[in-house]
């Protein structure tokens, strides 16, 4: 069914289809519309979920963990400081092998209080064992949320999945949305290690130095296995619903000399920069990275790479740039742009490409010598 929706409401629409038994969430700008819409669905009876208005984000994830281990589907949403406050428990959720799905609306970190788009919040969760996907349109927010449940709940994955949307730039804008009837695309959840009073067992108790490392390896093995299940899920989605997704969204990369790599809405707007550059005779392409974890094998051989990081790791560099260089073993032109919602247009992006200097880092708005 065709309609118009904000990114936030599209996520809520997808959740409505998946009927999590429990949604536990806490409000934070710019996520609030997601939980408000879900609360409204629950209130009107359209969604038969229990909505727990918890008293903090740490409790939101703890509540999701408690619900999930009983073997039911769960969902939450947060952003920025809420995600950070949850951090102890996001680690816990992955370690407990729970297929919780969470929407994170990417927002910067204070001080000062800044409510606009930045990716550092979710990127600080990259070590936790959560799978992470970054979307760039309202339609993709809807589709990715549906697929997230199927991927998370696959019995060879059983890891939580975070769906990231840019704060305000995607969460609050309206774009067309085509909703689907999910049907059996996401089968009913079956959690093999769910609590069973007839078969009692302890969960997450004291574990010694001779054992713990094995559980850590289990997480890694599952995240590596998830690659093929992500691919299969996206393929099946394309077959059933007609929209194709991959680990990256590539635009004019095949014959490109220089490729722009970015995530989220900037990754999409970069396509417009590519069109502009091509008119000038520069063979540019854009590669919008969708899945951050598991981090995919990127096809960048023989290309110059301009990485735009809407994030930073202090003392080290742009996080995407760092990860890409580790994989390709090549220098990139690392652009740091968009922090705290800093305005970055396709014209700016075209400028980054025109003035690229391989092996250097450029802070947009700070450096004046590029």
């Amino acid at each position, binding site marked *: 069914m065709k309609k*118009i929706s904000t990114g936030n409401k599209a996520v809520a629409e997808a959740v409505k289809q998946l009927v999590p038994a429990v949604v536990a969430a806490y409000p934070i700008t710019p996520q609030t519309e997601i939980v408000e819409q879900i609360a409204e669905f629950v209130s009107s009876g359209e969604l038969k979920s229990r909505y727990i208005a918890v008293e903090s984000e740490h409790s939101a994830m703890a509540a999701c963990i408690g619900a999930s281990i009983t073997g039911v589907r769960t969902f939450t949403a947060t952003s920025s400081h809420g995600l950070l406050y949850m951090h102890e428990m996001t680690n816990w959720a992955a370690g407990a092998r729970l297929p919780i799905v969470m929407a994170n609306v990417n927002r910067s970190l204070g001080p000062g209080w800044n409510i606009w788009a930045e990716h550092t919040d979710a990127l600080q969760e990259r070590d936790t064992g959560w799978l992470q996907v970054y979307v760039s349109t309202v339609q993709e927010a809807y589709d990715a949320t549906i697929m997230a449940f199927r991927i998370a709940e696959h019995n060879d994955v059983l890891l939580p999945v975070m769906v990231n949307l840019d704060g305000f730039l995607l969460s609050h*804008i*309206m*774009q*067309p949305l085509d909703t689907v009837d999910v049907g059996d695309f996401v089968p009913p959840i079956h959690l093999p290690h769910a609590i069973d009073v007839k078969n009692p067992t302890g969960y997450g108790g004291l574990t010694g130095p001779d054992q713990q490392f094995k559980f850590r390896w289990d997480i890694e093995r599952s995240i590596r296995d998830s690659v093929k299940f992500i691919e299969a899920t996206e393929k099946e989605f394309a077959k059933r619903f007609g929209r194709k997704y991959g680990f990256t969204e590539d635009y004019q990369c095949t014959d490109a000399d220089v490729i722009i790599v970015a995530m989220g809405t900037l990754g999409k*707007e970069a396509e417009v920069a590519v069109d502009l550059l091509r008119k000038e005779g520069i063979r540019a392409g854009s590669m919008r990275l969708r899945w951050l974890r598991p981090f995919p094998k990127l096809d960048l051989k023989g290309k110059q790479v301009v990485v735009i990081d809407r994030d930073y790791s202090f003392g080290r560099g742009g996080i995407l740039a760092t990860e890409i260089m580790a994989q390709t073993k090549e220098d990139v032109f690392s652009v740091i742009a968009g922090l705290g919602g800093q305005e970055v*247009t396709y014209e700016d992006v075209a400028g980054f490409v025109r003035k690229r200097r391989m092996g250097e880092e450029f802070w947009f708005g700070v450096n004046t010598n590029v």
Partner: protein
Amino acid sequence: MFEIRIHSRGGQGGVTAARLLALAAIHDGKYATAAPFYGAERRGAPIVSFVRIDDRPIRIYSQIKKPDMVIVLDASVMDVVDVLQGLKAGGRVLVNSAHPREFKGFVSGHVDLTGIALKENLVVAGSPILNTPVIGALAKQGIVSVDSAKKAIREMFSDERNVKVAETAYEEMSA
């Protein structure tokens, strides 16, 4: 691509106006996006919303710098904000006003949205509803079709007076 910037104050429905316009354009078979520029929740502060309409999918998220059209839902905003900033030469201006407004170098238009809303007693929390009548005015200007404008209004609002004020604004607006 046609880019529109809407100026209003928080609580007047400027964001909803953008959404309505985008929805109407989509019903016209176009691609459209609507975006507010937000600060924290606050009534009375000047805000802007953006609408882009195109025949192809829209891949731009950054703010509209060179609009083709500017809509001013609250004329008092013009005292504090340069509403014409970036407006393309020969671009259109539509002001919510009972009196004509001239903006040199641009195609100026006015319609008394407030008066139209008040006449139907279409007022919520002390503010006259401006976003539904303005869609009618925009239909007269050919930005969206009349049918799609009505369809969009009915999808977003249950009160049929919203259609009526759009029709009135259509009548009163010069083409």
